[in-house]
């Protein structure tokens, strides 16, 4: 069947195991511009490049309006980019017609934030999970039911759940159903857009454990889109940080948390409160001033300069490029040296 099954990539050694040469997802210079109602162009995504290796989990982090969800929607062709390309398993799907994309959809799937609005309330759980299996002709007859029960077991539910409707399940269980459906055709790529953000703490823990287990066992590549830094640290091998339609920093997870280079990443990490009063109250918090600029009219130079505590004249005029740093990192900031020396925005 798929290569994902024959090449299991253990999560712990994913940096080595993830196949960067033949990525499951390759996004090159993606742009998604919208025509604004009052004239002008909303640059929701403005030149984003990301690859997700086979068996790799890449976290895409950003705040509201950063364009992270638009990247995810374009990656699975729920939306069409206005520039750049999207390759899945080497196939260019950027501008394929709906009909042409359809047979390819078995290879990639999206998990949405809110399972109560992404599951059809009139279908049973069994029908919801079986739908992709039937459409892609992965099984027929009694084998479909068998496959459904197998998937239910994998996400921690019982066979009899197949006969229930979404409203009979809890939020956490519904998200498990979304995950079972996403995995029903053994995809090579799962794009998960805030899959745990609507869930309670204890439920979130179980869904994150489930995603981590399944990803390790099945070895699918995953683009994990979230605003939740702790969740992305838990799941991702590598993290890309977005600000106003662009990636400002990209690094392996541990390195990003230990030593954020971009002032925006530093501010983001410092602002997320830690659930430990002693630690939290002794932390230096970088409070960003000013508002998120409109993507209709992004600031010249570095897009972050209007809120950056360290901005210089060069930042106001010259656009920084995303450049390579040692250790497989990338950053787009004039103030970071080529050897990776970065200023501290908290000082």
């Amino acid at each position: 069947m798929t290569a994902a099954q024959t090449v299991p990539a253990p999560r712990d050694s994913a940096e080595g195991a993830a196949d960067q040469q033949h990525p499951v997802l390759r996004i090159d210079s993606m742009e998604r511009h919208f025509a604004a109602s009052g004239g002008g162009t909303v640059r929701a995504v403005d030149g984003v490049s990301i690859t997700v290796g086979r068996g790799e989990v890449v976290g895409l982090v950003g705040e509201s309006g950063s364009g992270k969800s638009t990247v995810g929607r374009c990656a699975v062709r729920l939306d069409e980019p206005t520039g750049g390309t999207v390759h899945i398993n080497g196939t260019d799907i950027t501008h394929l017609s709906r009909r042409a994309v359809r047979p390819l959809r078995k290879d990639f799937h999206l998990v949405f934030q809110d399972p109560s609005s992404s599951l059809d309330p009139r279908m049973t759980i069994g029908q919801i999970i079986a739908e992709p299996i039937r459409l892609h002709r992965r099984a027929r007859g009694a084998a479909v039911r068998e496959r459904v029960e197998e998937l239910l077991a994998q996400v921690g539910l019982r066979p009899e759940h197949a006969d229930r409707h979404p409203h009979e399940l809890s939020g956490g269980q519904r998200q498990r159903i979304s995950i079972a459906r996403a995995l029903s055709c053994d995809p090579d790529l799962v794009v998960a857009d805030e899959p745990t953000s609507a869930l309670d703490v204890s439920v979130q823990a179980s869904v994150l454990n489930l995603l981590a287990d399944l990803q390790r066992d099945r070895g699918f590549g995953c683009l994990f889109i979230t605003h939740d830094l702790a969740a992305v640290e838990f799941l991702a091998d590598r993290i890309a940080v977005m600000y106003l339609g662009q990636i400002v920093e990209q690094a392996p997870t541990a390195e990003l948390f230990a030593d954020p280079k971009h002032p925006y990443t530093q501010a983001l990490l410092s602002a997320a409160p830690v659930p430990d009063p002693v630690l939290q109250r002794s932390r230096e918090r970088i409070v960003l001033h000013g508002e998120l600029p409109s993507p209709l009219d992004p600031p010249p130079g570095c897009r972050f300069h209007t809120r950056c505590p360290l901005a210089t004249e060069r930042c106001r005029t010259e656009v920084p490029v995303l450049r390579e740093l040692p250790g497989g990192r990338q950053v787009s900031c004039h103030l970071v040296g080529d050897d990776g020396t970065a200023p501290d925005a908290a000082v």
Partner: protein
Amino acid sequence: MTETVLESVRGRVGEPVLSVRDLSVSFRSDTRTVHAVDGVSYDLHPGEVLAVVGESGCGKSVTSMAVMGLLPPTARIGGSIRVGGRELVGAPEKELQKIRGKDIAMIFQEPMTSLNPVLTIGRQIGEVLRRHQGLSRKEARERSVDLLDLVGIPAPRSRIDEYPHQLSGGMRQRVMIAIAVACDPSVLIADEPTTALDVTVQAGILEVLQSLRERLGTAIVLVTHDLGVVADAADRVLVMYAGRSVEEAPVHDLFATARHPYTRGLLGAVLRPGGEGKRRLPEIPGLVPSLDSQPDACTFAPRCSRADDTCTAGRPGFGSVDPGTGTDAAHRAACWHPYGAGEASDTLTATPATEPARPDQEAGK
């Protein structure tokens, strides 16, 4: 904002500004009765931040709505809620209207749905001032500018004539706070005030709340599910589970030595950013119970690793965790077998939730 009006409305130090006793709230429909809150008591002292934490359906928001007198007529409310010595349960609506906004005010999760989209923000703040303090239009406007400044809105003189849609989410929440504190209430109830906001914006709102407490002495009930926010802002914490109080403690005690197994489970399940690496998250097995009944037993027992026959035979009292000494009276828990202060948590089994589903429970917001 002036500090002069402060002293008049404050009670004596040591006397709670808000006192909730044995509060119960149930909602009755044709087919079922939901017991959303069952026997919750707490005191809020001047200038104090009390965090009320719990997961969806634990009754934390219903408790706040009861305090504000904002529950629908289908709600049956028992117990007592006293603000500045006045009883609110059973008080006529007219009486409540005098208290709401003046002595006790509330901010909500989603500022866009709480603000009137067709009125300028100056008009909306001024409305409160004119109604409760009888200010003239001009006085109200001046004071509104002060209030916007207090909550950290830049250029308040020009911003005051803007409409809610012209502001960002964080700025709207600041406007809500300005409206809430316009009459210098002794109690501010903040129900998930930062949940809809980005972390960098959240940091700013938490600082505004902190400065209100410092500059005006406002006591705050901070309703939240976010333990990071609790760790940042609270003095004291009340943990709720399935409509009941399960633990109450000063914030440092709660995080360092939680006694109730549910609190331990909650603290264990929360993700901690920064350098912990990849570990398996401890889960709390099972699902929250249905609120169709409030049995005479510990309602956490079915999910608890320490539960025995005692737990299912009777409801634990909500008392001091160290009854002998009396020194630790601020730390209370409702548990038959609470953890000792230095005792390590049992390893929570990581069994997935395979219990039969109960709709409406554990559901996302």
